[in-house]
């Protein structure tokens, strides 16, 4: 049969401009935002401040990688902040109160997180309880456990390893930033280049097609919830190292930042679409925003309003944009 004729060059250029805007919209937004803060405050544009932003962002960005998977498979996880809190508390209790080897303590903490993820994932996949509900419940349970364990007080945590993880530097760059980089690279590789990643997209795009294609969809769902819970555990360990304590209410409200970063990064709430790189940009955008606003001494309540608007705007633009590209 005839081969298909190719459009003129001009058309293709036009087309690519459209897709560039769609793909890089948040990236451009990030750069504009950085430009704006650089002009407004001379404290903003400096290497130490950038490292500071990277370190602050890393704690939520790590979880956002997991949230990307979760939202791609049409799920949601509201329990992330609570798991961060419990992970930190357990870390402190294991090391300070029980005198455990810190490495072993960390492994145990991640194992506990994984079990929480397993429970959530299994409930979603097999019992088919909507993830919104089960993770809302899990948020309460996990946070409650963290408070019970500590009777509501922070547990002191002073340990060289934990110190390095939470507040150390290597070659002038904060340790958490390395951890974040590793998770983003590995997490991105998994999603885009490995079988599991493809399955995640397929399950999110059309779970019935995925099942019919012989994919064990339940297993994919469970793995995804385990992954995000483990990322929460890692984030909790870092946070407790940074705070030098296990605080039962650490991580409160993280779910908002994490979901916002993921959505800003272009992951579709309809499922089946999203990239880890986009999420990184989204997380950085959130980080730059709060850092810049802080530097400019904006009232925290006003900050909330601004952040809300930014999320609204980003989602609004992406919806408009994707609708346009459908109609092209």
């Amino acid at each position, binding site marked *: *049969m005839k081969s298909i*004729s190719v*459009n003129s060059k001009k058309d293709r250029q036009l087309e690519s401009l459209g897709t560039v805007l769609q793909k890089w919209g948040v990236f451009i937004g990030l750069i504009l935002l950085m430009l704006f803060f650089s002009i407004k405050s001379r404290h903003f544009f400096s290497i130490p401040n950038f490292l500071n932003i990277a370190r602050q962002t890393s704690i939520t960005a790590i979880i956002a990688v997991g949230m990307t998977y979760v939202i791609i498979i049409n799920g949601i996880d509201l329990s992330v902040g609570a798991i961060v809190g419990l992970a930190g508390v357990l870390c402190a209790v294991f090391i300070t109160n029980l005198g455990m080897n810190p490495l072993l303590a960390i492994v145990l903490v991640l194992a506990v997180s994984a079990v929480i993820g397993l429970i959530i994932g299994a409930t979603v996949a097999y019992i088919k309880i909507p993830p919104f509900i089960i993770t809302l419940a899990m948020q309460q349970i996990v946070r409650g456990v963290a408070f019970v364990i500590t009777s509501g007080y922070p547990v002191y945590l002073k340990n060289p390893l934990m110190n390095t993880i939470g507040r150390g530097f290597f070659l002038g760059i904060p340790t958490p930033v390395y951890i974040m980089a590793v998770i983003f690279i590995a997490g991105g590789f998994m999603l885009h280049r490995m*079988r599991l990643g*493809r399955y995640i997209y397929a399950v999110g*795009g059309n779970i019935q097609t*995925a099942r*019919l294609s*012989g994919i064990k969809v339940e297993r994919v769902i469970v793995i995804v919830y385990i992954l995000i819970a483990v990322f929460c555990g890692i984030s909790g360990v870092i946070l407790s190292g940074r705070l030098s304590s296990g605080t039962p209410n650490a991580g409160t409200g993280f779910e908002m930042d994490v979901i916002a970063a993921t959505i800003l990064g272009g992951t579709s709430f309809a499922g089946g679409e999203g990239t880890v790189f986009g999420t990184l940009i989204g997380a950085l955008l959130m980080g730059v925003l709060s850092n810049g606003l802080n530097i400019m001494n904006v009232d925290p309540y006003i900050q909330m309003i601004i952040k809300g608007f930014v999320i609204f705007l980003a989602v609004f633009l992406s919806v408009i944009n994707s609708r346009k590209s459908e109609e092209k």
Partner: protein
Amino acid sequence: MNETTYILEYHGITKGFPGVQALDDVSFKIETGTVHALVGENGAGKSTLMKVTGGAYIPEGGEVVYKGEKVSFLQPADALQKGIRTVYQELNLVEKLKVHENMFLGSEEHVVLRDKEESVKARAILTDYGLEKIDPRRQVGRLSIGERQLLEIAKSAWANPDLLIMDEPSSSLSSSEIEILFNLIKRLRKEGKTIIYISHKLTEVLEISDNITVLRDGKHVITAPNKEFTEETLITHMVNRKMGKQYPERVSNVGEVVLEVENLTRAGKFKDCSFTLHRGEILGFSGLMGAGRTELMRAVFGLDPYDSGTIRLRGKRVNHISPSKAKDLGMGFVSEDRRLDGLVLCRSTKENTVLPNLLSYSKRLFGVINRKQENEAVDAQKEALNIKYANKDHKVKYLSGGNQQKVILSKWLLMEPEILIMDEPTRGIDVGAKKEIYDIIHELSLEDLGVLLISSENDELLGLCDRIIVMHDGSIEKEFAREEANADDLLLAAFGRFKS
């Protein structure tokens, strides 16, 4: 009216997508009050032209003249208001809502809905159109595909448009449903309406249409009155080459038994179904819509549960079958509904093609995908099935309907199954491509593939199968060997009235 008037005129319509010129300077006219058929190969641009007409796409060049008035760059809402209605190839009903709710969606007469009143009205309309078998209070998700299609058509017809566009309305209809459709079309024509009818079933096209337009590769080939065409000349215009016989000369290659199904029963769906499939055999399943063929096959593949009975593969009993297990055992399943469970529409053609086969392309550490192998496999399938798309990384939803169907086929053929269940595999596929697919099925069967073929086109079953099983009302009614089967008996058996 003696003088011909044209309700619609296309002048030089041009529309391209990245990498494809979907419409290239298309000009022709449609007479008022006629049934105008539009035919062409998969990807010829039929649906695109209709989307331009309905205002869903904006053409890059040319103009549409509607009732003597230039209407280029219509918006969908304008098109509706001017009396143009389109029943798109992809159905647009809300599955969770009931039939009557769907019918009046967007045109509810009261703020507080009157359920009763609506359903009574819906029933009256449906009965009027010969669709009394559809209960207005049922959920649309529970209707068969054919019923959904008819419902959508009835909904559009009821809106009383001057121009009704139907994009492959008959591809999922049974022969009795097609009769209902044709009666509806004839009635609308009598009322002075104009209908644009797209179909790959050329016999139908020749039966119902007044004029026919052929498109090929986005270009207009010919528009002429129905009587100037025969099936052969239509095909020649469509593919621009001679085509051989539609069905391959069947050489039987029946080997040992590979699949045995015994007394399979699922309450309310099918009961006591037993059959065997041999290596290299093509076993057809005929019957009316709702006879339980799809449900039976879904159970065999582990997609749906069954209550009792046994499934044996190569002599070994299979318990707790699931799709992943079935796949591991060498079974593939080409399902009947592209959008429901055939494709992941928001992902690329490549990802869709390799989905059931990823394991073979990711044998290295922890399932890292070998992109070179994967790309080669997808390209080979594109070549083998002659699938038309510009870029394998583009979303599969941008492919034309028939090409999507080919992607589904290719994803299972790539797996090299031993048993392939095919539920209406040639739905929406053009005549040329159908022949290619028949040839492929035939050749694979010579290489010992066992095929379970469900089809509502008895021609297809008669041309291809070694044996044909007819189902009626959830049970196996009759089995015919190739030699003894004929169209009349198949139909009688499908109605449960065959007496030997």
